[in-house]
């Protein structure tokens, strides 16, 4: 027997009359020629007859009544005539729409304001802005100055006592003239030596002056530095102060640190004064490694000292010092 794909399907369709005419003829021919196929067809037909012979059962008579009853049990929806006022409804709807539109516009306005405050630049140019088109400038490497460290301003008074009053005053005057620009100091009157020198200068000028003043320190009977504190009227007094110590105090960048250094010097100088001998002073000077020693000017030729240029910035004039020279005890 030749194997035919889906033979059972074809035989079933043949039994049920669901095959196209051409395939129907083909199956009939096969059944006539192939005994096994004929036998299979007969078995399938018997299956069909067996099932189709099953008696038709009648539905119970109460089905209709039960269906009616199931609907009767369901809650009836009482349809009450609803009275609609179409005009009022239209008005209400229009009002709601207007309200919604107004609310949306308000929200958009608020949102715009918020966005504007975030995005808009601080200065807004009024009116049209002309933009100048410039040719790009040739690139120049500019070395920008580093950040300027402005030292904390120093304010204080230097009180010098000497037995050689006129000579010392004259020396100081000359030193000030040579190292401090004329607009930064008020010279002491020769006739009134007690009139103090008031200096408002920068640290560079001051260091030069201090280096020169160091030469007359041996002529002094005493020297005291009164450093003004941040509290008005309160001062730290450093007795027996040296030029190096003055430099160390004045050149401190931080006022707090300056006070600490001044107090240290005051204590140490007092201790040194009370101790026999002056060796401790040398020891103290050695321990103060962080203090700045003012450079002493060294003339390398017979060239005269060039006066400082008066062109200075106000920011550099952070030293306010009054020098008072008094006669010896």
């Amino acid at each position, binding site marked *: 027997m030749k194997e035919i794909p889906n033979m059972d399907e074809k035989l079933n369709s043949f039994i049920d009359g669901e095959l196209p005419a051409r395939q129907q003829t083909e199956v009939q021919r096969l059944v006539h020629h192939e005994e096994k196929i004929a036998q299979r067809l007969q078995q399938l037909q018997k299956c069909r007859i067996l099932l189709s012979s099953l008696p038709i*059962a009648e539905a119970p008579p109460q*089905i209709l009544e039960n269906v009616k009853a199931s609907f009767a049990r369901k809650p009836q929806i009482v349809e009450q005539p609803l009275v609609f006022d179409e005009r009022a409804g239209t008005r209400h709807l229009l009002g709601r729409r207007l309200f919604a539109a107004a609310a949306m516009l308000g929200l958009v306005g608020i949102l715009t304001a918020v966005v504007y405050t975030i995005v808009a630049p601080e200065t807004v140019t009024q009116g049209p802005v002309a933009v100048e088109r410039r040719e790009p400038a040739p690139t120049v490497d500019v070395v920008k100055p580093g950040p300027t460290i402005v030292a904390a301003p120093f304010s204080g008074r230097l009180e010098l006592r000497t037995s050689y009053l006129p000579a010392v005053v004259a020396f100081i005057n000359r030193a000030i003239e040579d190292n401090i620009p004329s607009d930064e100091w008020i010279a002491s009157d020769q006739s009134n030596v007690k009139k103090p020198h008031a200096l408002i200068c920068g640290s560079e000028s001051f260091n030069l002056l201090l280096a020169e003043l160091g030469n007359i320190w041996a002529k002094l009977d005493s020297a005291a530095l009164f450093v003004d504190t941040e509290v008005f009227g309160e001062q730290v007094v450093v007795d027996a102060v040296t030029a190096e110590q003055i430099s160390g105090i004045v050149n401190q960048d931080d006022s707090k640190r300056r006070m600490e250094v001044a107090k240290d010097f005051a204590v140490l100088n007092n201790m040194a004064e009370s101790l026999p001998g002056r060796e401790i002073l040398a020891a103290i000077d050695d321990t103060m490694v962080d203090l700045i020693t003012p450079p002493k000017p060294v003339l390398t030729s017979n060239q005269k000292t060039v006066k400082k240029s008066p062109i200075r910035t106000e920011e550099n004039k952070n030293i306010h010092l009054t020098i008072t020279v008094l006669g010896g005890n």
Partner: protein
Amino acid sequence: MAEVANMDTYASKRRINIDDAVLVRRCWQGDSAAMEELILKYQNRIYNVILKICADPDDAAELTQETFVKVIENIDNFEGRSGFYTWVFRIAVNLTLNYCQRNARLGFRSLDASGAKAEYSSQSNLALKEFLSDDSSPDPAAVAQNKELYEIAVESLMKLDDAQRAVVVLRDIEGMNYARIAKVLDIELGTVRSRLSRARSKLRQILEAILQ
């Protein structure tokens, strides 16, 4: 006359049986008598198909009732794309298959139905043997009178799986053609062919097994 002509046009447009079309239209207008008429018209056929698939008279009655309740509830949604008859059978078969699946999940299927080999009397075996070995075409009416063959047929049918049983019932008991079966079960025509073929092959094997 004009009304009848209009009705014909309407029925041809909706492609539904003219009698059913009239009744359905009256149902849409709220005529409860038309609905009663439809129920009475189809209740036996629906019940019979359901009973052959689920094999329990009480459940079959309940499912038939449920089918008509759904029909009444959804009659307004019936669009007439298929015949009313097809639509009602689709509802009935879907409800029944869902019921069978639910019962299968819960394990309510009887042991006989689930494949346990039933014991048949020698008289039954003899009747089946005669039926199968008879070369002449047996008369269905005579077969229907045979109580032993009836029992065997019912038992064999219940040994098919639900989907196969539904196809066999719709074809061999309800007498639907393949196209209508495809619409009722919402499957492809080829699926109907293959499923029916497998179902009958399995039935043949079941019957042969009874004889052995």
